[in-house]
């Protein structure tokens, strides 16, 4: 059953994504307005530089692609609530959490990267897993190490697949670890080591 914290998390992600989309629309609005201004001035006799038009058109196309990517991520995130128990690609979960975390990474002035690794499928609650991984990433981004690069990836562990978040400051406050109750709901184990948080999932089968 969804809990109030789940709804708060969904709202927080939606607010962050809508803010990003507002920025995309704002850029499109100004670049299109600039084109309108230039065309208007051309109508009054000003020479139009074709390169100037090409640059503006390129910017518009880039923002449309950016907006499309943001909406794709939001759509994938929304569909994590479809069923509380389904086959999930851990690689896709990592990619989604990293994509949703990019704005917050920018706000913290931290680079957020995914590391290549295996892509096992597990049966779990995709929404809760995304929420737990996002909480781990948020903690890492709030207390990064000197490189200011937080990485997330899938690893093979002795107990089962592992979602590993690295790049935390070695002295990051362990007392602020993501809610253990969430890990319990999900049936996973959280393991902290200096500079690292690991979500250990049960082995398949």
């Amino acid at each position, binding site marked *: 059953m969804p809990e109030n914290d789940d709804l708060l998390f969904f709202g927080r992600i939606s607010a962050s994504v809508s*803010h990003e989309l*507002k920025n995309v629309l*704002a850029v499109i609005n*100004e670049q299109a*307005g600039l084109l309108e201004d230039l065309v208007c001035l051309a109508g009054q006799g000003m020479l139009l530089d074709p390169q100037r038009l090409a640059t503006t058109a390129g910017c518009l196309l880039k*923002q449309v692609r950016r907006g499309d990517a943001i909406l794709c991520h939001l759509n994938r995130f929304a569909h994590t609530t479809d069923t509380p128990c389904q086959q999930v690609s851990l690689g896709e979960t990592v990619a989604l959490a990293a994509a949703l975390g990019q704005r917050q990474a920018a706000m913290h*002035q931290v680079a957020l990267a995914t590391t290549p690794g295996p892509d096992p499928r597990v049966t779990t609650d995709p929404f809760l897993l995304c929420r737990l991984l996002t909480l781990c990433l948020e903690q890492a981004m709030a207390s990064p190490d000197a490189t200011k690069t937080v990485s997330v990836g899938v690893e093979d562990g002795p107990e089962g697949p592992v979602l590993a978040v690295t790049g935390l400051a070695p002295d990051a406050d362990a007392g602020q670890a993501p809610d253990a109750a969430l890990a319990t709901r999900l049936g996973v184990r959280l393991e902290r080591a200096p500079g690292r948080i690991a979500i250990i999932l049960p082995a398949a089968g």
Partner: protein
Amino acid sequence: MNILFVDDESELVSALAERLNLRGIKADYATDGETAAEKVRANAYDLAVLDMKMPGLSGLDLKKKLQRLRPGMRFIFMTGHGSEEDFRAGSSEAAGYLVKPVRIEDLLAAINQALAAGQG
């Protein structure tokens, strides 16, 4: 009239500055708080249009910093959020508050209103 736009979306602020330049208004832009502060030290801006949520310094903190550098400067906040919290903070701390995307006519009206109020 000399305006500074500050927002981490470079393609937004560059276009806004260019659109004002095309209307005969002197305008420049910065994409972070540090660059904005450098520009304010070097130039006599009348007004700055600040994004409320930027990496590093928030719009509210940047406004305080720029105001210390140039006490007579006026400010307008621009935000993508449009939340009640932002509206309260933005409205009380600046001469204007705009929600993205902004119509150029609304921007020009807000700038004129803020500068007229500053002369009063």
